[in-house]
């Protein structure tokens, strides 16, 4: 499996650290109830098909990437830097 880093190009899977589902980007406010935190940290849609998850280009440019890919074929459909997303904060 190769991931396509927007900065570094196609790179071997071993250069990346897999973190988990894009749910991790939906961080609740500090005073949100336990349910909201549980939702972000633990509960998953876990789709068989297209999913979006977070990968860190550990031995490359050090970017956090949001990868759209298939969990049934391992095909990589799209990759973007988390920092480049619309509305991404500083």
């Amino acid at each position: 499996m190769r991931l396509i880093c927007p900065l570094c190009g196609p790179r071997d899977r071993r250069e990346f650290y897999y973190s988990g589902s894009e749910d991790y980007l939906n961080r609740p406010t500090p005073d949100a109830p336990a349910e909201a935190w549980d939702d972000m940290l633990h509960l998953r849609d876990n789709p068989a098909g297209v999913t979006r998850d977070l990968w860190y280009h550990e031995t490359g440019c050090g970017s956090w990437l949001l990868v759209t890919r298939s969990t049934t074929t391992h095909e990589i459909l799209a990759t973007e830097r988390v920092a480049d997303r619309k509305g991404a904060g500083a």
Partner: protein
Amino acid sequence: MRYSGLKVITEGLFGNKGWTRAWRDPAPKAEYDAIIIGGGGHGLSTAYYLAKNHGMTNIAVLEKGYLGSGNIGRNTTIVRANYFIPGNSEFYSHSLKLWEGLELELNYNVMHSQRGQVVLFHSDGQRDLQIRRANAIVNQGDDAEIMTVDQLRAEFPYLDYEQTRFPIYGGMMQRRAGTARHDAVAWGYARGADQRGVDLIQNCEVTGIDVENGVVRGVQTTRGPIRAKKVAMIAAGRSGQVAAMAGMRIPVESHIMQAFVTEGLKPVMDAVISYGMGHFYISQSDKGGLVFGGDIDMYASYAARGNLPMVEHVMEAGMTLMPMIGRAKVLRSWGGIMDMTPDGSPIIDKTPIEGLFIDAGWNYGGFKAVPASGWCMAHLMATGQSHEVARRFRLDRFRTGQLLDEEGTGSQHNLH
């Protein structure tokens, strides 16, 4: 039909014409007292103990493929009870005791072989941890012994003890651990459940779960709707999708895990060995193949095949630990879909929907759990109460913070 050695001999003498099917192939009824979704090891053992221990025989197991087509037929068959933390340790202890009586119980040869498992350690820190673990295991009445390098050398002369990076300091041996024939475990429970009246329905995929006002009513399947007041979701790697049919999001992410087997060899190793550095464990099957595996591939996946980096890692670890393995040829490799929970421990619980139960999150360790999981899940479904040894396997423990983090690595799906 009762199986026995005498039966094998007489059938052999008379052309093996007297064998009958091991279980029926019934059409689904319109309604059952309870439905089990998933005909893997856990679904079948749950059905067996519902019938045997609780007299519930008007039940059905619905399996989308054939019985045993999931992880129950894909694992590396290690059975052990060397868990450490309260919540896990008593459960696996109970399971191993059930294993020890399983063949008599089921009248089925599951080839349970208590050949021992040794977990190696390679540093002072690992040794301290394994000694502590061994003490805890002994204290709860199970067996564990710490082996020195000299003792290990005598039993396992083919390991590389003086490797420069990870010299072997010793190991924790559990003599009662071992292996079993995975398919036979599914078949044995299936036959036992069928004999007690349970309908085992194959090629029957559940496509929907009917819930009205927070109460489960039954399921939709590729063979028509079936009503039931109790429904159990026991779908291992597919648990997330099955739970979604009831509108639930559960703390499970499915990952791929690979395993490998070599060509058949003469007996070379008579115990299960787990490497303490790198991910590698190995045993020899009764057929002679060296069966070995490593860790999950570390990304969410439903493909029943993995990627090459983990293949390379497992081979490297194997060569480091026991260089003789380099002479064997790998025959096959495959993958299975693992239902990973954030803390690496399972779930046996009710759900917020009345009458709907869940048994899931077995990660890569659910084969050894098959007997106790069925025992405890049946207890929960029949009595409405968690069984004593499974009472901490709660669905909501991530929200409440009552984690069962055996490895102490944190609460995230890819860390176990």
